[in-house]
């Protein structure tokens, strides 16, 4: 028997002996191992806050009830809130109700790497309200429904208060926000500017509400997605040229609109959004043709991708008039085989062309006219000039990011 085996065996015995100990005795052993931090109460507030910020929210709540001093520290501590969703649209909440019911669901995540989402559902209960959530019960190997009764008939208001309070606990440093609310109580809201917000998903057709939300966000480099509450095209969300001029949209890094963007020709030709997607745009085929030609002649802007909705009524020939195209033929597939297969994997198929830049011949666009569902015109900046170690230029093709 080797030495390591003896050590492992004795370790096993020690673990077994520890497991047999009563919980108090086990904790005493653990405490001896940790050795404690007996001067916690004497630590200055600056350091205490620094320590508390490394605790998870649950541990913070437990510390909060240890003493008045700790309650004060936790109250001032920053809680990381990574993502918050406020939604009154989900009528069926799996596990809580099998039938449709009116509710407001609040979903949040403490960290980007945490897979666990906290889901709280607020709804009416008799004359008051209730908050419900699901928790895994290891004994049952299933979910338990937990309910907290709230002494207020306005569950809608209570849900918003809860969500805004969590955002406040995160010192308004929320990076991702998703809102899908029919009537957000803007007048009673305690929302404040969200200077760290990068991603916003808004579902709603109320322009006043959209504008109200935008006021809290940073002016530049946002990732914005806007959806309509209605799926049908008659009621689709339409942004007027004036609304498309809102600084947050104009200076966004990514902007996707599940609706129609009523761009003026000038607005469309002066777009500066690196990744843009629209279900439809109001501009004519000639303007799209000019947009492409501007890029070819080096006068257009440097975008990653522009996805232009349905081309059902569009004349592709008009769009491509006077533009030199290189079809994705066998030669091209041989030259950039890996790129082509990866492109299909992420962006699908369709008619595919490569369009080179006249000023920077190693730079090129991929034009995709999709052949699934509704035809769509997608323009990706895929070919980029690179310099080899010997100083020679070559084209490297990049598969577009998912958008």
């Amino acid at each position, binding site marked *: 028997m080797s030495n390591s085996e003896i050590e492992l065996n004795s370790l096993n015995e020690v673990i077994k002996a520890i497991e047999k100990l009563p919980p108090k005795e086990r904790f005493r052993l653990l405490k001896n191992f940790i050795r404690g931090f007996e001067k*916690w*109460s004497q*630590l200055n507030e600056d350091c205490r806050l*620094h*320590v508390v910020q*490394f605790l998870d929210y649950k541990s913070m709540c437990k510390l909060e009830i240890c003493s008045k001093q700790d309650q004060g520290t936790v109250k001032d501590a920053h809680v990381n809130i990574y993502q918050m969703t406020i939604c009154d649209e989900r009528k069926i909440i799996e596990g809580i109700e099998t039938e449709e019911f009116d509710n407001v669901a609040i979903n949040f995540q403490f960290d980007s790497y945490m897979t666990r989402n906290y889901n709280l559902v607020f709804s009416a209960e008799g004359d008051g309200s209730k908050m419900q959530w699901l928790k895994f019960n290891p004994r049952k190997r299933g979910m338990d429904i937990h309910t907290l009764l709230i002494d207020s008939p306005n569950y809608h208001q209570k849900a918003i208060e809860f969500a805004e309070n969590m955002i406040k606990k995160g010192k308004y440093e929320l990076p991702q926000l998703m809102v899908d609310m029919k009537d957000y109580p803007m007048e009673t809201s305690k929302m404040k500017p969200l200077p760290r917000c990068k991603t916003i998903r808004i579902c709603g057709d109320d322009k006043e509400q959209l504008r109200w939300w935008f006021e809290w966000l940073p002016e530049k480099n946002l990732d914005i997605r806007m959806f309509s509450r209605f799926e049908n095209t008659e009621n689709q969300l339409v942004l007027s040229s004036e609304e498309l001029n809102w600084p947050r949209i104009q200076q966004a890094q990514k902007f996707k609109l599940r609706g129609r963007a009523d761009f003026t020709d000038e607005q469309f030709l002066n777009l500066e959004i690196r990744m843009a997607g629209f279900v439809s745009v109001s501009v004519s085929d000639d303007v799209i043709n000019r947009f492409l030609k501007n890029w070819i002649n080096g006068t257009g802007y440097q975008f990653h991708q522009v996805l232009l909705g349905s081309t059902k009524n569009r004349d592709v020939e008009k769009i491509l008039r006077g533009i030199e195209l290189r079809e994705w033929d066998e030669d091209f597939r041989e030259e950039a085989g890996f790129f082509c297969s990866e492109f299909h994997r992420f962006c699908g198929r369709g008619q595919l062309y490569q369009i080179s830049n006249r000023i920077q011949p190693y730079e090129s666009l991929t034009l995709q006219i999709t052949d699934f569902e509704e035809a769509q015109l997608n323009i990706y900046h895929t070919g980029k000039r690179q310099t080899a*170690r*010997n100083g020679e230029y070559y*084209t490297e093709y990049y598969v577009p990011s998912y*958008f």
Partner: protein
Amino acid sequence: MSSTEQGTSSAAPAEPTTAPESAAAPEVPESFYYVHGKDKVVHKVSAGALQHSALIHGMISNLGYTEEQAKANPFPFENIDGDILQMVVDWCNQHKGKPTPPEDTNLPKQKEKLFDLVLAVNYLEIKELLTYCCKQVAMMVKGKSPEEIREIWMIPTDAEDEAAEKEAKKRAGKEAAGETAAAAGDAK
């Protein structure tokens, strides 16, 4: 949303050529400073190592001391115990000129010194070390019940706190009365 942007080259880039080696820059002699704690033991530390401390870095950045001047004027940190300052200096030397990894295995192991270390590091504004120390303290109570937290961090209950406060007030009152009586005696 996952970023899938990845490059695939269309033409094989040419064989790499050896990049010309940059001419060796003349070596600038490293400057050293001196610090001491409560025990007056002086530690010699390079300016590079001291960059970790925002407090000291701010103090020395405009000094332009010569070696002799630096030696003659060690920075006094009377509020920091000598052994704690030694730990901090060692850590700064180990991490000179390099960013600290998120999990730092070079942290002093003596847990009983952690309290003083946290205070010293906070005072000296060594951000990375403070973060690491505070993480260690936080880890002690992560996932514990309030009773366990109280025991690990020796948190007195509010009642104990109040009793201690009362006791302190009583003591202060007695001391004040004693001092008044003594002063009156002196006056007579």
